């Protein structure tokens, strides 16, 4: 497509805003219904209070929106900091084709999951308080996480903006934002390290409430390490789906590099999961976990650690040894379920485990959570269909020599 020909900025935006592709598809219909239902639920939530919509409980103050969309969802956005680390810091050029899609996914994840946080806040109109500086709770882990979310969203936006400027043919701004890339990548990795572990640190003071098999002072480190393979597993699934759904938008080089990238990611995942398992075992022994293992909670713990960490770790291993992409995809799927289990075990299932009641979200909570994910997918699709995310950047933006000086 020759973007140089458009006459003005506003007609360009108008043209681009029009939907591309079929409007009536099964996916679109399900998404539309879910989002519409979610809007109605949210109106009820803001007029009648949280209790009218969520499974309210004084014992379990954080519901599905925080525990699933924020605590769990953000772990899957970890792919961005890992992939930017590999490409920009370590110079693993092999992975460059997936950088843009990964950053875009993470940017949207942070935007919409932070949005989900707003839905769960009891008094969201006060959300500005910890930002404008009239009341800095400096000793609070949540304060740190909130600030890091905001700063990281900014970093991700800058990391993604070369793509936006290429889409809008803004040559000089592109030069400027591209020159910031390395700085924001480094800043972003530091922020991610801290807020991925910070999400775990939110539960440090809930020591008497979380089952001793899941609670340890090392939760922050475990959250950080697991966010690495959580993010990469999601990248694997995202690439698998993207290759089918966005055939038209994907460049030939991207398509050709697909299997190579998958195998490489599988290798990194299996190594990281191995490190994670090692840490988990250390923590288990350190906390005298054997005392608790012979109980229903103990068996559930074994299901999580063996079934959803050890087994996918081994499948990843076989996948890259035998160069079998399907094994890699299966392993990625299992480890994604494993991360969801781990985060929900800490934040929901074993939270106040001694009460012996299982806390289920209401259907309304699930509909809103699903709607948040649908909106994220729709925006992702809108951007991918217009901007060079999977595709090659336009000719004017490719300057091989310069790219290497800037990025490499």
């Amino acid at each position: 497509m020759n973007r140089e020909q458009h006459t003005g900025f506003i007609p360009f935006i108008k043209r681009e805003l029009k939907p591309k592709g079929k409007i009536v598809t099964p996916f679109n219909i399900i998404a539309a219904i879910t989002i519409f239902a979610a809007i109605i639920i949210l109106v009820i939530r803001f007029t009648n209070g949280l209790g009218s919509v969520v499974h309210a409980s004084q014992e379990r103050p954080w519901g599905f929106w925080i525990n699933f969309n924020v605590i769990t969802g953000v772990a899957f956005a970890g792919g961005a900091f890992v992939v930017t680390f590999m490409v920009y810091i370590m110079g693993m050029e092999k992975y460059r084709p997936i950088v843009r899609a990964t950053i875009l996914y993470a940017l949207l994840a942070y935007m919409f999951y932070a949005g989900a946080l707003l839905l769960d806040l009891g008094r969201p109109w006060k959300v500005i308080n910890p930002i404008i500086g009239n009341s800095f709770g400096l000793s609070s882990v949540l304060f740190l996480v909130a600030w890091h979310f905001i700063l990281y969203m900014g970093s991700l936006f800058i990391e993604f903006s070369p793509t936006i400027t290429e889409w809008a043919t803004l040559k000089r701004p592109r030069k400027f934002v591209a020159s910031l890339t390395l700085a924001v990548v480094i800043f972003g990795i530091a922020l991610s390290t801290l807020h991925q572990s910070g999400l775990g640190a939110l539960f440090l003071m809930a020591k008497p409430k979380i089952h001793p098999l899941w609670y340890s002072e090392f939760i922050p480190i475990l959250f950080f390490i697991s966010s690495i393979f959580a993010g990469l597993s999601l990248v694997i699934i995202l690439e698998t789906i993207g290759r089918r759904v966005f055939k038209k938008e994907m460049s030939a080089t991207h398509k050709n590099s697909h299997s190579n990238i998958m195998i490489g990611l599988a290798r990194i995942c299996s190594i990281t999961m191995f490190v994670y398992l090692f840490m988990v075992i250390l923590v288990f022994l350190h906390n005298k976990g054997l005392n608790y293992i012979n109980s229903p909670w103990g068996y559930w713990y074994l299901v999580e650690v063996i079934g959803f960490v050890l087994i996918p770790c081994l499948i990843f291993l076989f996948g890259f040894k035998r160069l079998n992409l399907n094994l890699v995809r299966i392993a990625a799927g299992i480890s994604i379920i494993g991360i969801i289990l781990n985060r929900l075990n800490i934040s929901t299932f074993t939270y106040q485990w001694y009460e012996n009641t299982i806390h289920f979200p209401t259907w309304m909570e699930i509909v809103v959570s699903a709607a948040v994910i649908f909106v994220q997918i729709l925006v992702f699709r809108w951007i991918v269909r217009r901007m060079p995310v999977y595709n090659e950047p336009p000719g004017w933006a490719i300057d091989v020599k310069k790219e290497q000086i800037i990025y490499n």
Partner: protein
Amino acid sequence: MGLKRRNFLKTLGAVGSTLTVGKSFGATSKKEEDIEFYGILYDSTLCMGCQSCEFACAEHYGLPNPEDMPEQGVVRKPNESRRLTINAFNTSKGEQYMRMACNHCNSPACASACLTKAMIKTDEGPVIWREEKCMGCRSCIISCPFDMPKFEYDSPNPKIQKCRMCFELLKEGKKPVCIENCPADALLFGKRRDLLEIARARIYADPENYNHEIYGEHDVGGTGVLYLASVPFEELGFRKDLGKVSYPELNKTFLYSVPAVLILWPAFLLGLRNSRVKENETKPIKE
């Protein structure tokens, strides 16, 4: 001799104690150490379970009057419409009552979890919630080892409900309403240090009647509300696995590592990247 033996010992003791305090609370300034918190002493052996404190609290804060009575086998927890409850327990010494409300910890988990400083430990001692700051994230509830802050789930403008030791009355020089209205003198109000002495004196004067422990003296780093009872506190619905360390200590290692990571990590990454780029640059020259 200018320095009498007694004074010498006193000075020695003072120096010794400041040395140990200085070690464990390196960050607190001298001024903070001078602050003396007010507290409440609840003596379960004197409590008749009449609920006068509950009624007084409900009336003072415009909350609904309690409709249920203390009953053995039922734990009436405080919730968004009551800040204070009295419960009955069947113990080894017959029916005993126990108060349940915010314990006003010396170093409260809720305040350290709060990202807007809506929950604060005042210099006077009460831990209070401030409506204009709170954004309703409920991490105070997650962190509180006693589960005391309560959230109004059914309100579009929800508040956190919890005992505030009648902070406004305290500032006017008055006592909290529950204490003013206790007909059995089971509740005492005063400086925490004095209350501890009174509690010890009571145990000492009547060692048969009391369980020799003051709950809250050291638990979770010390609480503003102190408890005396005739039976071990486990029998009165207390958890004994909460530990003696203050809860914000659990976050300390993580929070201390934050500046280190923010400074060292980018420097390391930049170094890593630059060393690699230089390697690439020098290659063609060598060839």
